[in-house]
């Protein structure tokens, strides 16, 4: 058996959901890969498009209902009824963004810039862009192109390549 190390050479991430935590999971993994010298492509599709849409990307929310892992500050369970009150989701999300900022996690627009500064590539899904009636100018300037899933798969060729779906 060979013990030769075979490091990852390419990661292709697909971000299909638009909640704060889903988009950040993709961004942290993408930026981490770029920092490790791994070729990185990120494909934003469906609600994940919020993560690269100028109007939405810096105001992402985390779900305060239907999220069993949600806790009050201090660790007590977060009552679902409370999560449904107007303004609660907004307030909780802004609190989360502040906590992330304290750990030096940048806002989404800056995170995208960090990824492309290191050579990572950001794409939008054509089907989803058409469905949400978006245009190229509605998307972050860091988005290189609007492409089909087939074109994205073509970029995922080669040994030591992983596709990650979040």
């Amino acid at each position, binding site marked *: 058996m060979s013990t030769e190390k075979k490091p990852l050479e390419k990661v292709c991430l697909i971000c299909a959901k638009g909640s704060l935590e889903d988009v950040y999971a993709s961004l942290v993994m993408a930026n981490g890969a770029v*920092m490790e*010298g791994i070729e990185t492509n990120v494909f934003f599709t469906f609600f994940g498009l919020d993560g690269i849409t100028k109007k939405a990307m810096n105001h992402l929310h985390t779900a305060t209902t239907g999220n069993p892992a949600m806790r009050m500050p201090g660790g007590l369970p977060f009552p679902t009824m409370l999560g449904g009150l107007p303004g609660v989701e907004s307030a909780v999300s802004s609190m989360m963004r502040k906590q992330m900022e304290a750990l030096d996690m*940048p806002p989404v627009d800056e995170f995208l*810039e*960090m990824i492309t500064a290191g050579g990572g590539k950001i794409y939008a899904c054509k089907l989803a862009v058409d469905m949400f009636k978006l245009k190229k100018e509605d998307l972050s300037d860091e988005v290189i192109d609007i492409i089909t899933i087939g074109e994205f798969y073509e970029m995922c060729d080669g040994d030591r390549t992983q596709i990650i779906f979040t």
Partner: protein
Amino acid sequence: MSVKTIAGVQVNVSEDGYLEDMSQWNEEIAKEIASEIGIELTPKHFEVLNFLREKTAAKETLTIRGVGKSGVVNIKELYALFPKGPLKFSSRIAGIPKPTSCI
């Protein structure tokens, strides 16, 4: 941990090749580690290395974002100086521990 001779000096290094004691570092050691990685150091590299060493001495956690906002280099320049390892390679050459931050 093992002992290694770099630029004629015996230093303690970790398994990944990071200096265990940042006070053992000097510019010649930096140049030799850099050439192992394939980087030729310029005065700009040393500006970054000194910044990283100052922050580490002050016990601050290094993140790529923090370095990018330091005023020494922006993130794009950092990648240009230390290709494929902006924080990892720069830390190794600066004689400081392996970065522990995910960002």
